């Protein structure tokens, strides 16, 4: 494979392709060739009436994704699984060491530390995020004047992302001149050092995560606007109070979205990286997030085998937690039955 790439590379070099394009051209050539082959094959199959034009078109179009899937997902997954059983420091050749990487994991105190940091963050911040964003969305769903103005304000923080957000919050939590401690001083409390204290650095990051619940809020709002008004009217005729309406109509109707937000927030939380990176793992490794520890191993110390093992453990953890939430969803997620779905469509058609 490498030989082919180099061959194409030197060909383009020979005909004087621009230097900045050179890394891309061999790759591009191979991809174009692959598509040409797929196209020709489907063309022939259609001509010989083995498959329909529709089938051919479908597979031709979807091959855009399939090729990427094989190249950037399946291939890497297999490779990463293989590498996790090797000792490999990039410069040398990979050396098979069986389960040693995984055994090493269980003796690695930093592994446990990063795991506990990540669990702490996930288990505290995700429920808070889910509850807060739902509460805000319910408020936003009231028919109040100027509500669009509020929606925009609550969404604005979401636009300050990643590094910029971390830069801002390191300063907001500055023990002397930061916003939070200035506020606390007003009510006579001397705030902690936040990012310089092992106990308070995590609460600081969790508070920071709550600042950007606007993204989840928007998704809830989209769901809330989908709830048929007739359900509320029926509840009102039965004399339901606002609280009962929220509990018996809104919540069941919105539960699939609640579920979606819970799963995505959880997966996102398990993958937290920037917050750990920007403070080098925080004081006493209190912000040594799992993804950051993985990054350190793979890209700072070039322990590719060990890093891959770490990645697979993370994958299993995320899979287990997602499965647990999926399992529990039968208890609290309400999906509309076929019949009401059909009725809803009819109503929609009538409106149209």
């Amino acid at each position, binding site marked *: 494979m490498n030989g082919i790439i180099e061959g194409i590379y030197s060909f383009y070099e020979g005909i004087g392709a621009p230097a900045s394009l050179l890394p891309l051209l061999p790759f591009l050539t191979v991809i174009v060739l692959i598509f040409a082959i797929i196209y020709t094959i489907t063309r022939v199959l259609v001509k010989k009436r083995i498959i329909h034009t529709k089938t051919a*078109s479908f597979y031709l*179009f*979807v091959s855009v994704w399939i090729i990427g*899937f094989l190249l950037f997902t399946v291939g890497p997954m297999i490779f990463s699984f293989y590498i996790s059983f090797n000792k490999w420091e990039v410069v040398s050749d990979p050396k098979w060491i069986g389960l040693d990487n995984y055994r090493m994991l269980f003796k690695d105190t930093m592994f446990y530390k990063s795991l506990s940091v990540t669990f702490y963050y996930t288990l505290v911040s995700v429920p808070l995020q889910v509850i807060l964003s739902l509460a805000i969305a319910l408020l936003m769903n009231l028919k109040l004047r100027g509500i669009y103005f509020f929606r925009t304000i609550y969404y604005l923080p979401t636009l300050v992302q990643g590094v910029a957000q971390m*830069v801002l919050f390191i300063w*907001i939590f500055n023990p002397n001149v930061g916003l939070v401690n200035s506020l606390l001083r007003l009510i006579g409390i001397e705030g902690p050092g936040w990012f310089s204290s092992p106990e308070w650095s995590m609460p600081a990051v969790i508070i920071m995560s709550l600042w950007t619940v606007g993204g989840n809020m*928007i998704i809830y709002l989209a769901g809330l606007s989908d709830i048929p008004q007739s359900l509320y009217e029926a509840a009102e005729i039965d004399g339901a109070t606002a609280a009962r309406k929220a509990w018996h109509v809104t919540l069941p109707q919105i539960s699939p979205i609640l579920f979606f937000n819970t799963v995505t927030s959880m997966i996102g939380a398990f993958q937290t990286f920037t917050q750990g990176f920007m403070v080098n793992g925080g004081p006493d490794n209190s912000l040594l997030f799992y993804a950051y520890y993985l990054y350190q191993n793979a890209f700072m110390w070039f322990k590719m085998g060990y890093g891959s093992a770490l990645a697979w453990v993370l994958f299993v953890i995320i899979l287990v937690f997602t499965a647990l939430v999926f399992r529990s969803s039968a208890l609290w997620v309400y999906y509309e039955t076929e019949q009401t779905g059909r009725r809803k469509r009819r109503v929609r058609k009538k409106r149209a």
Partner: protein
Amino acid sequence: MSVKKERKSAHKKVHWLAYILLLIGAVMFLYPFLWMVSASLRSLEEVAVSGMSIWPDHWRWDNYAKALTAFPFGRYLVNTVITTVFPIVGTVLSSSIVGYAFARLKVRGSGILFVLVLSTMLLPGEVTMIPQFILFKNLGMLDTLYPLIVPSFFGSAFYIFLLRQFYSRLPVALEEAAIIDGCGYFKIWWKIFLPLSKPALMAVGVMVFMGSWNNFMGPLIYINSDKWKTLTLGLAGFQGTYATDTNLLMAAAVVITLPCILLFFTAQKAFMEGLTFSGSKES
């Protein structure tokens, strides 16, 4: 009659309570934001004593000039624009054609394939990160912008899903006439579905913009030399070297955030509409 009145006054009370809660929340959500902007306009001495106030005594506009010349801002900006524009084009085109195929060309095996597409959403990027790095290393693409661009041209599960939802809802009559006229499916996608899905494509574009513009881990892994660094890398390095120049740091953060804010306000309607499709319950 009296019951109705009672209920109305109860409603009013609820509304007042809601307004108060919303206002308190709005202050909490907006204050850090305004604080950042005001700090970017202060002198360093003033920042140290400003406390809660958000009105600068002296407006130091030259902070911005200083912040932008403290690192090769122009070059980083160009790199960031490149790694944002190409992924937008790539994701929109590739996810749209794949989404279209899944929505309108139902053939044998398309259901299973779609489940496969959705399942990739659960896979954490960390698992494929190391091998992808090796792959790009072997292709000789390390320390270029290509690793940040190339994968987007192969579609991404979330956007394929979003666009499929959108295309599923368009009327069947659309393509029937075109087929009678002898249009191929590619032409139908290009001439009919792509132009019709502008709002959804706008939403996808905005989301890809936010993701690519703020992408940090990607550039951090693939880029080494100053020549190809992006703004987020620049800001992270800036935080490391100029940690005490808070005002300049805030100015840089404001500048990096500004395009996101501008884009949000111009594309707000399309963005919200596009999200409605993704959040929808229809399967």
